[in-house]
């Protein structure tokens, strides 16, 4: 009731990376690199946006390279063809086990999502600010899942999709709607919170290691890499698998057949 526009802007701004209060020592919100004015609307190009562009460019480049190489592929695989076939086949079997043989075509979409999230999570290792540590990115990816869930529900279920909201008794309609809206929120916040939490802990570790007395400087050698292994590599990979698996499970649940 009492939330003013300014406070909402500050709250949302911090979560999605607008720098409205540059007072914290720890670099949690992504920096604004450029402010563009397009038709009277201010568009803020933040670190997240630039990092996402870099990752997208890298992924598109890799895809193009393998698309060109694909012309020379034979029935009997050799070299890079082995790797590509391994990746595609494991993704295919993953989708088939989570959904079903009939909806295996979702693998085309979820492979792209998987690659984007995985590379985003791992980009922290190269010194980037992971784009997934920004609610904007995760909310955008989750929005596509949300649309897919309900599109598939309406497309396959027709009337029974809408009837599902009145079950088991019609009084529960508001609760059913809220539980539908909670799905994308929990999906996006899980990925965002995990990656942001890891990033903040790594930032604090680096701050602490920078202030060590010279006798204890030996800790600078192994400690960050071991923590990166857990927070970036392990948590990043697990959260990617979880995100894709949960998306597929939610879509499968809505499909009526």
């Amino acid at each position, binding site marked *: 009731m009492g939330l003013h526009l300014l*406070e909402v802007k*500050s*709250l949302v701004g*911090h979560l999605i990376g607008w720098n409205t209060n540059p007072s914290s020592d720890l670099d949690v919100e992504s920096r604004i690199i450029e402010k563009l004015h397009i038709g009277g609307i201010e568009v803020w190009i933040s670190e997240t946006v630039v990092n996402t562009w870099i990752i997208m460019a890298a992924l598109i480049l890799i895809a193009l390279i393998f698309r060109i190489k694909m012309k020379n592929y034979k029935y009997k695989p050799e070299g890079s063809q082995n790797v590509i076939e391994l990746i595609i086949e494991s993704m295919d079997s993953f989708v088939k086990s989570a959904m079903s043989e009939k909806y295996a075509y979702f693998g085309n979409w979820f492979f792209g999502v998987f690659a984007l999230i995985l590379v985003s999570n791992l980009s922290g290792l190269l010194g980037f600010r992971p784009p997934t540590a920004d609610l904007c990115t995760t909310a955008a990816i989750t929005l596509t899942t949300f649309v897919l869930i309900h599109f598939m529900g309406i497309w396959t279920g027709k009337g029974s999709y809408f009837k599902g909201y009145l079950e088991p008794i019609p009084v529960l309609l508001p609760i059913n709607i809220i539980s539908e809206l909670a799905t994308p929120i929990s999906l996006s916040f*899980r990925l965002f919170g995990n990656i942001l939490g890891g990033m903040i802990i790594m930032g604090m570790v680096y701050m602490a290691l920078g202030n060590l007395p010279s006798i204890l400087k030996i800790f600078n050698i192994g400690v960050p890499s071991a923590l990166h292994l857990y927070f970036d590599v392990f948590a990043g990979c697990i*959260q990617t698998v979880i995100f894709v698996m949960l998306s597929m499970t939610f879509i499968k649940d809505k499909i009526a057949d």
Partner: protein
Amino acid sequence: MEGLDPRAFVLGCSAIGAGLAMIAGIGPGIGQGFAAGKGAEAVGRQPEARGTITSTMLLGCAVAESTGIYGLVVAMILLFANPLVGKIAG
């Protein structure tokens, strides 16, 4: 309450609140430990079903984790994007 800077008061209370919000971490900790224990039990009983058990356990762990993540997000908001500071008059 004379001489007390309201901003400092709100910021201090927010820091305490952020700490309290992280108590939410207890729930997922217990839940995930329970799930992992049951998973180990299931693998011990049926080692050939290891792959299915592991993926099911990870899915359950991830769902159990969301309450802890909500606590973390609330703590982050209180620490880095405090909406209460703007409410102070003057």
